[in-house]
């Protein structure tokens, strides 16, 4: 077998993608440091139990055995390791953390997806106030300006909105679950067949419209006025209205939408959820929300928590798409001209030193790199061997 082949679902990163990604990471890191967040790094390897609350969907985890026979995994997520860290230390709360690191999720074989990806994110632990959610929305808005030409649309939702309505509809928990899955996955033929049992229920008109209750907030709120929704649901709608009002006051240019029919990013989410996407991206760029029971997996005492993940790879793909080709210049020089070559290198944008020993080699190098050729030697080559 050849020894230079990569494992399935992995890739090397080099050239413009590697530098664009590095630049995105640097911008995000500076942003969080400027906001006074503390950096946290956790190991790539964790015990499998750490991820018990994590829903992997169609993915799998890389698993290993350690010397004691315990199962270790390459982390598929960066939030639960932070919860593990907090429950095992006496760090005083509240705290604002940020992280940047790689996560590993094995996708379907030969599907074209990569199993290793880079995520950045924040965890605001010990904050009960809505201000924690608002700081996350402010960060999405600012990073959208800094990295994505203000193209990000924020989508708001509520983790327990759908379940709340279904509890009012029926006591049959299995049926609740079936309707919920069909709604979240927008399996409309299945969903319509399941809700047909409730054609005499006062919520039936709402149920019929529900899978399409996403999009522009004013349109959604207008549609909601047509249904006589119970008070406990109306309270959540009012809370969303307040946040949308705050966004329009604080960041008037920010595009916002609502989705009252989608699944929370993870099952441990308990409150407001928010995501960010752009018209061109193949996935969500930002994803987060409140999960007040996060630490419950590790300790008895729960803590208020808000978190948000940022998909660096999707942002890098978008940046690459927008990148205009820059003309490189290849500088050929003699060893006696190092200082001059360094001055030219600093002066000309996107220039690079040719390390070839002959003009012919240097010209070939420039040709291969599709670069302009700049000869500083004036025809006197190789003065120092």
């Amino acid at each position, binding site marked *: 077998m050849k020894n230079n082949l990569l494992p399935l679902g992995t890739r090397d990163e080099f050239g413009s993608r590697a530098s664009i990604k590095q630049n995105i990471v640097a911008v995000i890191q500076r942003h969080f440091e400027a906001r006074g967040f503390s950096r946290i790094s956790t190991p790539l390897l964790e015990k499998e139990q750490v991820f018990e609350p994590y829903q992997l969907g169609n993915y799998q985890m890389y698993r290993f055995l350690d010397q004691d026979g315990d199962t270790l995994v390459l982390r598929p997520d960066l939030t639960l390791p932070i919860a593990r860290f907090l429950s095992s230390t006496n760090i005083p709360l509240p705290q604002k953390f940020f992280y940047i690191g790689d996560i590993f999720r094995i996708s379907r074989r030969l599907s074209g997806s990569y199993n290793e990806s880079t995520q950045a994110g924040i965890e605001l632990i010990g904050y009960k106030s809505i201000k924690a959610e608002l700081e996350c929305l402010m960060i999405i808005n600012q990073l959208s300006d800094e990295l994505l030409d203000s193209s990000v649309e924020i989508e708001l939702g509520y983790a327990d909105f759908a379940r709340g309505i279904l509890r009012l509809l029926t006591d049959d928990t299995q049926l609740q679950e079936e309707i919920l899955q069909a709604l979240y*996955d927008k399996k*409309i033929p*299945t969903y319509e067949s399941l809700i047909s049992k409730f054609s005499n229920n006062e919520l039936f008109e709402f149920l019929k419209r529900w899978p*399409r209750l996403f999009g522009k907030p004013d349109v959604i709120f207008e549609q909601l006025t047509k249904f006589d929704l119970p008070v406990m649901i109306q309270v959540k709608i009012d809370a969303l209205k307040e946040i949308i009002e705050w966004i329009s006051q604080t960041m008037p240019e920010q595009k916002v939408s609502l989705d009252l029919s989608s699944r929370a990013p993870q099952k441990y989410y308990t409150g407001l959820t928010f995501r960010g996407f752009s018209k061109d*991206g193949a996935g969500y760029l930002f994803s987060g929300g409140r999960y007040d029971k996060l630490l419950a997996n590790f300790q008895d005492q729960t803590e208020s928590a808000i978190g948000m993940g940022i998909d660096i790879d999707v942002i890098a793909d978008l940046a690459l798409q927008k990148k205009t080709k820059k003309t490189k210049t290849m500088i050929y020089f003699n060893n006696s001209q190092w200082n001059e070559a360094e001055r030219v290198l600093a002066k000309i944008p996107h220039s690079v030193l040719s390390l070839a020993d002959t003009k012919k080699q240097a010209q070939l190098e420039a040709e291969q790199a599709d670069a302009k050729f700049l000869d500083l030697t004036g025809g006197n080559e190789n003065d120092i061997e």
Partner: protein
Amino acid sequence: MILNENRIKIALTKGRVEKQVVPLLEEAGINCDQIRNKKRRLIFDSTTQPYEFILAKGPDVTTFLERGAADIGIVGSDILTEHQSTQYELLDLDIGKCQFVLASTEAFDPDEPRRKIIGTKYPNITKRYFDKLGQDVEIIKIEGSVELAPLTGLADAIVDITETGTTIRENNLKIYDYLDKVSTRLVVNRMSLKQHPSEIYNFVDNLSAAIQMNNDREIAQ
């Protein structure tokens, strides 16, 4: 993978699904002349419509959708289930109807207490079916002419789809159980629906109206 901002890319399963869907699309007001006169082409863009069609095999339609290389897919529910599609399923086109069955020779005893060998093109659906029954079976993946498996002794029985049962009967096989029903579905990439809701729902609603009209006509006849 980057999505094209302006056009809705529709991946259509070529072959039988394509033949049944094209008249429905035309009834929904979509010009399909290019697909009807396709020759060997697989991709059809239009200057007059906001849609671009691509023709692909069923399993590849799900891959195009998962990767965001297509916004809408039209494909059988058998393939969606087998490939564990995670995209939105907005419409049942009510065509390409068939059903999964468990079939074998007359001599097969489904209750015989031993680990059975099952031949199929659909290992995931087969495994799910026998898991529900609480039976552990050995599955052999077969790419075509699945009926051969019990006839040649390769497998004890098969799980396959059938429209009328004719092929099964003609090969001297008997149906022992009926599994999930199958029909052609319209599936939408999750992100695309958020990015182009009005364009996609416009397409879905027109097609839905055409299906309804078709069904009403059949009932009237």
